[in-house]
């Protein structure tokens, strides 16, 4: 087959398609979004596989599980913190012994380019006792995803493919293999493995533990884990893309170290022992937490020197770069060009687009809040989180998807008034609805502000799972008092009346919900471009206020 130029994310998607993928599910999240974008584009052109955005990572995972329940291959993809949301089905899926292949593609974000933490998903794979692949380049992302389906069905476990930002969002040439057909529909040979009543769960857990030896043997024999001979008593262990930075620098060393690369877990203990027989000093390079480094410390007697993130040769936080790896290898970093004046230049943080509806919503909210001495304004994850920065400085928290609702309720329960929660429509549909149910049940004295721009903005304007027009129906259906549920247009010409409504609802002692609606400018632009391209009549894009 031909070569293709693919992002790391796209290589995973195409690898899954060529492995006979039947269905794929995800919630958008940087740096994983392009996996599903690619699948949606492919499905539009070829009519398969089924690819869809889900409400959140947990529902995505459960839909994927259903595909495997009937014997077919499924992909579920997410960013690292998305796996926290999907942790419940993820952990239990390891017990049900799926016979249809299940691959969990998780894109970690070391350095937190677009995330609120830099957790390392390899711990989750270890926690669930499953196999994890960690590709180093786009070719491996493709090949390993294909292999992951074989491993999943052979050992009847979900298999993780762990990406990091720099692989997910870098493009290179990939050699493609022959596509494999989809699996036929076939329910499980017996469903008791899927019924995790304690009596079954204990048996399934024992069976998973009993397979651990086979998983270790598989990983130990995999060509993705490789020992390369060196000279001297110094050795380097790399995992995933750390290998690229090592190879970029190794030729500048006086003598070539022994090199063990880990590309698939569980970490290959016999190979590590063979490696450590040759060396006294080991440097561990990982783009993430010191995962292998910690395992190594427990494996090795104390006469060994193990260097890495825990000992400071590599910074304990942040992503690896060719230069941090160079420093860790004891090589001087090349000087760039320096100038005296104006260094460092002022930072240029991201900001809301000119004319963004969120800006109008924040101006109204600020006006309402200015009429009291102090207010609590919790918020959430999306473009609107940029409202925390000047010139708005309008919100006070961003913790995890949906947290704004629960936190405002907690602040109100603790006695603070007024308490606002500010959440985007997609974040609300992802994880805000259940929090609102709690607030309805208690008629909590708080005001929920839903910023409804009809899209998942920050990740590139993906469609929300429900359209704007259904938000009010949903909120009312939960039992919010219709007298305290308002849908307003987030337009500058309504600024004064919007601020008045917010002030009124702030004064109301009970639960209020204010939905501020106006379509994201990116979506308006895309619609216009699509309309121009198709030569069709413009379609009215009016908000649903």
């Amino acid at each position, binding site marked *: 087959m031909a070569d293709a130029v693919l992002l790391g994310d796209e290589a995973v998607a195409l690898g899954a398609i060529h492995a006979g993928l039947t269905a794929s599910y995800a919630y958008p999240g940087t740096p994983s979004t392009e996996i599903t974008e690619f699948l949606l584009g492919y499905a539009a052109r070829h009519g398969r596989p089924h690819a869809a955005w889900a409400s959140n990572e947990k529902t995505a995972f459960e839909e994927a599980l259903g595909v495997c329940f009937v014997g077919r291959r499924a992909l579920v993809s997410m960013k690292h913190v998305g796996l926290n949301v999907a942790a419940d089905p993820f952990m239990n899926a390891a017990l049900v012994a799926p016979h249809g292949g299940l691959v969990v593609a998780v894109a970690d974000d070391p350095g937190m380019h677009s995330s609120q933490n830099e957790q390392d998903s390899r711990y989750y794979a270890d926690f669930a006792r499953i196999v994890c692949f960690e590709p180093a380049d786009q070719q491996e992302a493709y090949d390993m995803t294909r292999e992951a389906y074989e491993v999943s069905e052979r050992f009847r476990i979900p298999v993780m493919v762990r990406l990091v930002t720099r692989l997910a969002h870098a493009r290179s040439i990939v050699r493609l293999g022959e596509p494999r057909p989809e699996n036929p529909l076939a329910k499980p040979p017996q469903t008791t493995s899927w019924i995790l009543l304690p009596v079954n769960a204990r048996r399934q857990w024992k069976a998973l533990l009993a397979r651990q030896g086979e998983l270790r043997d598989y990983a130990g024999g995999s060509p993705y884990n490789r020992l390369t001979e060196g000279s001297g008593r110094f050795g380097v262990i790399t995992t995933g893309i750390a290998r690229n930075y090592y190879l970029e620098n190794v030729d500048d060393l006086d003598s070539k170290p022994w090199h063990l690369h880990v590309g698939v877990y569980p970490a290959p203990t016999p190979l590590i022992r063979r490696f450590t027989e040759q060396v006294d000093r080991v440097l561990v390079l990982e783009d993430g937490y010191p995962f292998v480094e910690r395992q190594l410390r427990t494996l090795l007697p104390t006469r060994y020197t193990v260097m890495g993130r825990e000992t400071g040769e590599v910074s304990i936080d942040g992503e690896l770069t060719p230069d941090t790896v160079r420093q860790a290898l004891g090589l001087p970093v090349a000087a760039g060009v320096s*100038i005296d004046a104006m260094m460092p230049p002022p930072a240029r943080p991201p900001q809301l687009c000119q004319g963004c509806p969120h800006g109008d919503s924040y101006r109204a909210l600020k006006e309402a809040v200015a009429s009291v001495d102090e207010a609590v304004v919790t918020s959430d994850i999306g473009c609107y989180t940029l409202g925390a920065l000047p010139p708005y400085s309008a919100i006070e928290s961003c913790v995890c998807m949906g947290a704004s609702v629960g936190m405002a309720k907690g602040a109100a329960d603790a006695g603070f008034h007024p308490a606002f929660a500010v959440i985007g429509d997609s974040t609300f549909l992802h994880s805000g609805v259940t929090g609102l149910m709690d607030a309805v049940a208690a008629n909590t004295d708080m005001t929920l502000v839903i910023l409804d721009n009809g899209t998942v903005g920050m990740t590139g304007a993906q469609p929300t799972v429900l359209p704007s027009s259904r938000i009010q129906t949903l909120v009312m259906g939960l039992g919010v008092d219709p007298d305290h549920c308002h849908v307003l247009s987030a337009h500058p010409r309504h600024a004064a009346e919007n601020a008045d409504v917010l002030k009124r609802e702030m004064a109301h002692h009970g639960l209020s919900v204010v939905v501020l609606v106006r379509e994201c400018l990116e979506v308006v632009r895309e619609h216009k471009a699509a309309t121009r391209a198709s030569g069709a009549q413009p379609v009215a894009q009016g908000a649903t206020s």
Partner: protein
Amino acid sequence: MKFDIIVAGVGGQGVLSVSAVIASAAMEEGLQVKQSEVHGMAQRGGAVLANLRLSDRPIASDLIAHGRASLVLGMEPLEVLRYLEYLAPDGTVITSIHAVKNIAEYPPLDDVLAAIRRLPHAVLIDGDTLAREAGSLRAVNMVMVGAASRVLPIRPETLEHFIATRFRSKGDQVVQQNLQAFRAGREAAAA
């Protein structure tokens, strides 16, 4: 041969398009290419960076090391200053002179441009004017690709081919504007 390029700009300026055109043309000429991009949060009006590595041998790292870039290509002058530590001592800076002043503490533009002019190999391009003359301000990206073509290890015809390919779906007029912009940028960088 290896040629590392930092493309720097502000979210919305088309840094990724510039990188994509150069990458496609380099591959067409048989070079190995690694192209690393910034997606997500930074694209919302923040500083945006693309690492583009071209070589006649396999490339390991997606990211460019300090002091190794042959070219820092700026869509915006202040953004060039941010990445000078990546520029090789004999490397070239090519930048548009037009500022995107979406931050309060933007230094005086004359000082920024003067600092860039003092660099050993700097080419400053009046990108906006050339793009407007080519028929569309939005073609400023291709003005900058044209200016870069003076130092890229890629034939200008190959770059023109991929510019035409990239804009084909937008109609012949847009294709011609962008080709014109490319040629104007190439011309300006020769002066």
